[in-house]
């Protein structure tokens, strides 16, 4: 057991976002977090990353409360992969990955040859060594996402927190990122990710947690948790779930209902 969350209440001062959250993360598992916009996925991530204080309850990392971990030590255990963002400065991809070595370096030192090797092999492991010297501002969104994963791996963590790792990526890059996530979990990393796509949860997750009405509505294997009823409750959308021949994972197909426009709304001319 790596991360143990007990009766957690999280949120901001004066605004509680989630309550009564309990879950524990197993070594080498992928946990997908689903929930509608505004359900508090990002706030939850900020809390388990130590960016926001725990309101009540406990977040235990290796049986020690998260808040008692020094920041640097924590960054060697939990790494965060933000959504691929536009950087301001044209750092090379390798420079960005090297930043992941910060928690392993003394405050006034710069990364050395060994850190460079670690950063390069993180890029190489993700098949991206060829973009090492390209400016981060000029590579594609998919490449940026993988560079950020490489940066997190350079931290040599045991837990990866990924905020919608497939958002803003094209179909091919989405699937490449998902297969990297599977491979990372197989190598012993625990991964918590948020997603808006039930299919992605079916593809990569060992367990799925549904964040709804400020608590975990259900948690368990994707096939048990991601039911048409649950997705309807979460998103107010009708779906059918099934498998098609040749695909090992289940698929979720939405059925679009006719919208109910408010009075006075008109479509078209």
């Amino acid at each position, binding site marked *: 057991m790596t991360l143990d969350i007990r009766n957690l209440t999280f949120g*901001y*001062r004066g605004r509680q976002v989630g309550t009564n959250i309990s879950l524990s993360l197993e070594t080498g598992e992928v946990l997908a977090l689903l929930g509608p916009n505004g359900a508090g996925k990002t706030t939850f991530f*900020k809390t388990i*990353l*130590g*960016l926001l204080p725990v309101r009540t309850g406990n977040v235990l990392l290796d049986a020690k409360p998260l808040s008692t971990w020094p*920041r*640097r030590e*924590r*960054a*060697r255990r*939990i*790494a*965060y992969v*933000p959504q691929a963002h*536009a*950087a*301001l*400065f*044209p*750092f*090379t991809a*390798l*420079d960005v990955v090297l*930043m*992941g070595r*910060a*928690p392993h370096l003394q*405050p*006034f*030192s*710069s*990364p050395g040859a060994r850190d460079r090797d670690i950063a*390069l092999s993180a890029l190489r492991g993700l098949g991206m*060594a*060829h973009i*090492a*010297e390209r*400016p981060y*501002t000029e590579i594609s969104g998919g490449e940026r996402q993988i560079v950020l994963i490489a940066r997190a791996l350079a*931290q040599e963590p045991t837990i990866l927190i990924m905020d919608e790792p497939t958002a803003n990526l094209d179909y091919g890059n989405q699937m490449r990122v998902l297969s990297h996530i599977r491979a990372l979990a197989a190598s012993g990393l625990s991964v918590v990710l948020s997603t808006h796509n039930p299919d992605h949860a079916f593809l990569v997750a060992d367990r799925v947690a549904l964040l709804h009405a400020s608590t975990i509505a259900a948690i368990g294997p994707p096939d048990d948790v991601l039911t048409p009823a649950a997705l309807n409750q979460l998103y107010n959308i009708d779906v059918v779930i099934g498998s098609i021949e040749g695909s090992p994972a289940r698929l979720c197909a939405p059925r679009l209902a006719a919208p109910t426009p408010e009075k006075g709304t008109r479509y078209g001319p």
Partner: protein
Amino acid sequence: MNRREETAAVTAGTSGKGLWLAFEALLLLAAVSMTVGKYAGPAEIFRALRAAISGEAGDPVLSTVLWNVRLPRVIGAILIGAALAAAGATYQGLFRNPLVSPDILGVSGGASLGAVIGIFLSLPVLVIQAMSFAGGLLAVAAVYAIGVAIRGRDPALTLVLAGLAIGALVGAGISLIKILADPYDQLPAITYWLLGSLTAVTRLDVVSILPALCAGLVPLVLLRWRMNLMTLGDEEAQTLGIDTRLTRAALIGGATLVTAAAVSVSGVIGWIGLVIPHIARMLVGPDFRRLLPASMISGGAYLLVVDMLARSIALIEVPLGILTAAVGAPFFLWLLASGRRAWQ
């Protein structure tokens, strides 16, 4: 080592060598700058130098011009240009904004108010400088205290907005004193100070700002790699194990110290801290480990050239603030148009 890594190593090597070359060019420029001026041209300067080296008594006026007027001025230009550019590079990264200059947190405003009060009260020059230095530090301390007091928002943005408010406040104070000042004696002095000048820089000035300059550079040099991580924004930097509050405080403290020291002797010289870091970034890239020395060398060289122009293009000395903008803006636009990318 594969080919790409080799290229990287070579690039790093050339950039280190490039910085040395640039530094040597700066020294050469300084030597040239020594010979430019109204009173004595290159021939007189060489004569005075030869006299100094051989130990014989040369023209005493010439030797005063050389050692007590021109040399402090040249060294002052390099130090002040380098200080403003270093502070600008730091603030632009720290606040993740290309429009940021060293006075973003009110240091120039506070320093101006201090100096303007000193001029208004007809205090001695050294006291005016001390008041200017203290005013700059006080303004930033006030901005920082406000930034710390207002929590729950993006701390960098809070600081910038607090800086804006304090800047407006000290600006009002300066305007008030300008209205109250004697229009024949004090007002020109105030206006001249607000436009910046190295005319009156003495050896004592150079020596007296050195400790603050060196002390301010210490955190910038020590944190030169961590500075890169600060450009990611607070939360991301924190997940990488950085104590962002402490790091930001140290970097702001250093940048403020060097700016306040520079402004206290030269007055407000705008534009350098804004534009030189962009130019340096175009030349050596965004890595602060190279950006800091490159900015300092470029800033020193730029102010040196501008100051040479200031004392040679017209019968009177042209205030530096006018020239830094007049020379810098077209050059900057040309760089922008030439398509070098240093900012997304």
